[in-house]
């Protein structure tokens, strides 16, 4: 074994920032929690999960692009994951791998996670090719356990697990070394379903799509990984009604039920969430219109026009959507003003594009899954024309939206 560093404490927190789309969330979580257990079984270490805020060890999945990791991955195969040594704590997995559990197919998430946690705890690569800390993945082993070299390495760093530590751990039966999840997240959505709760053109021109408890980014070359909403915007619930970012104030407003949350980037503004009192609850959609720098809120067949910085008399609202936005449906599920200067409305699986006169353009509605979420249509041979016409690159990464590729069933 090789020692690369060590934590000055033995009771560490961890946070799972997002999960792979190839495994049911509960299976992926169980694999990650078990990976911690391999190490806490042989050394006086405890790992406590936190759902928000800072954590010593942070696990996440990203692909060829990542806003927070310069060490990008290389697609399926070759590099599977990487991690920082103590006391940095980041552990990254390649989201393009076929992460599996309980099968020889794909790459076993539990074993790779245990390896990367070895690095995050201070171990380097082992020369024993059968050791967990060997650099090359030796494949799925149904009765996997640590190699003596792995155990010797971690105990060289943190000592042996003495009986009293074990007793102490037993005492902590109320708080096990790896606390189970408190809230079972809603099932991870399939972006290829085309269904949306909200869409937002956020800071730095990033397009965010919200569905259930999850959010993902939409880029011209593909989709970002799915994150839990609360992982990015701490304190924000899922199943949102609407989301809107205003470049004028830098404020992001999220709406759900009779409440409104305000963030600047990912930090909640003091005093929020607040109760909605001058517009109706349970909004459908929201957008910022750069031409008059106002925020528009939509519900059913009506809209409100809101000046964030002035006392707006909203008593004359709601006004009929159709008066201003010609040709759009009532009860939209989402709306946004996009980088191309046009306004988009989304409803069900379809979307409408409006010109600068706020009139729906010819040839709409079109399919969200096909033109925004890069999903290949069911019928073979049709080209992936770009919904936003020339603004999208032709080398689209398409998601195969046949359900089987979204989940690998564990045996």
């Amino acid at each position, binding site marked *: 074994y090789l020692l690369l560093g060590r934590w000055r404490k033995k009771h560490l927190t961890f946070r799972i920032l997002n999960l792979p789309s190839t495994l049911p969330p509960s299976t992926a979580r169980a694999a990650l929690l078990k990976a911690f257990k391999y190490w806490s079984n042989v050394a006086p270490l405890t790992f406590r999960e936190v759902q928000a805020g800072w954590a010593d060890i942070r696990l996440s999945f990203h692909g060829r692009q990542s806003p927070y990791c310069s060490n990008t991955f290389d697609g399926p195969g070759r590099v599977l994951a990487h991690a920082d040594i103590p006391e940095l704590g980041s552990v990254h997995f390649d989201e393009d791998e076929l992460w599996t559990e309980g099968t020889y197919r794909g790459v076993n998430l539990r074993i790779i996670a245990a390896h990367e946690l070895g690095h995050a705890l201070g171990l380097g690569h082992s020369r024993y090719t059968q050791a967990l800390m060997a650099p*090359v993945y030796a494949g799925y082993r149904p009765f996997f356990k640590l190699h003596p070299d792995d155990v010797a390495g971690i105990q060289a760093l943190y000592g042996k697990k003495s009986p009293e530590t074990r007793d102490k751990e037993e005492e902590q039966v109320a708080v096990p070394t790896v606390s189970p999840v408190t809230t079972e997240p809603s099932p991870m959505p399939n972006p290829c379903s085309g269904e949306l709760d909200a869409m937002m053109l956020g800071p730095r021109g990033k397009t965010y799509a919200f569905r259930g408890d999850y959010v993902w980014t939409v880029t011209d070359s593909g989709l970002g990984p799915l994150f839990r909403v609360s992982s990015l915007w701490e304190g924000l619930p899922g199943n949102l009604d609407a989301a809107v970012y205003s470049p004028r104030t830098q404020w992001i407003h999220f709406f759900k039920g009779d409440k409104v949350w305000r963030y600047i980037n990912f930090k909640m503004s003091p005093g929020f969430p607040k109760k909605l009192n001058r517009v109706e609850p349970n909004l459908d959609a929201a957008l910022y219109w750069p031409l008059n720098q106002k925020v528009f809120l939509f519900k059913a067949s009506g809209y409100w026009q809101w000046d964030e910085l002035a006392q707006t008399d909203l008593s004359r609202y709601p006004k009929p959507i159709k008066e201003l936005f010609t040709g759009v449906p009532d009860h939209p599920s989402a709306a946004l003003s996009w980088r191309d200067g046009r306004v988009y409305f989304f409803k069900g699986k379809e979307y409408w594009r409006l010109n600068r006169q706020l009139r729906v353009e010819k040839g709409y509605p079109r399919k969200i899954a096909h033109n925004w979420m890069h999903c290949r249509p069911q019928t073979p041979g049709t080209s992936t024309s770009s919904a936003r016409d020339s603004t999208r690159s032709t080398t689209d990464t398409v998601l195969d939206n046949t359900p089987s590729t979204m989940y690998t069933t564990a045996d």
Partner: protein
Amino acid sequence: RALGPAEKEAVVDYLLQYGYLQKPLEGPNHFRLEDVTEALRAFQEASELPVSGQMDDATRARMKQPRCGLEDPFNQKTLK
């Protein structure tokens, strides 16, 4: 057989990426043949392959296997 330029570059990239070859501190990556041979020997030994310092099919296959992105500390010289 002699390595083509593309394969030679791929092998050198792999040995560099995983710590078998030390990136020279000054100037571009011109490696002496003996440096590459020594790095390849270290990789073959660590991979429990026949240690020849030459590229062979077993070594080529091993380099294609899925692995962790962190470096390997198996070449004593680069480890120092």
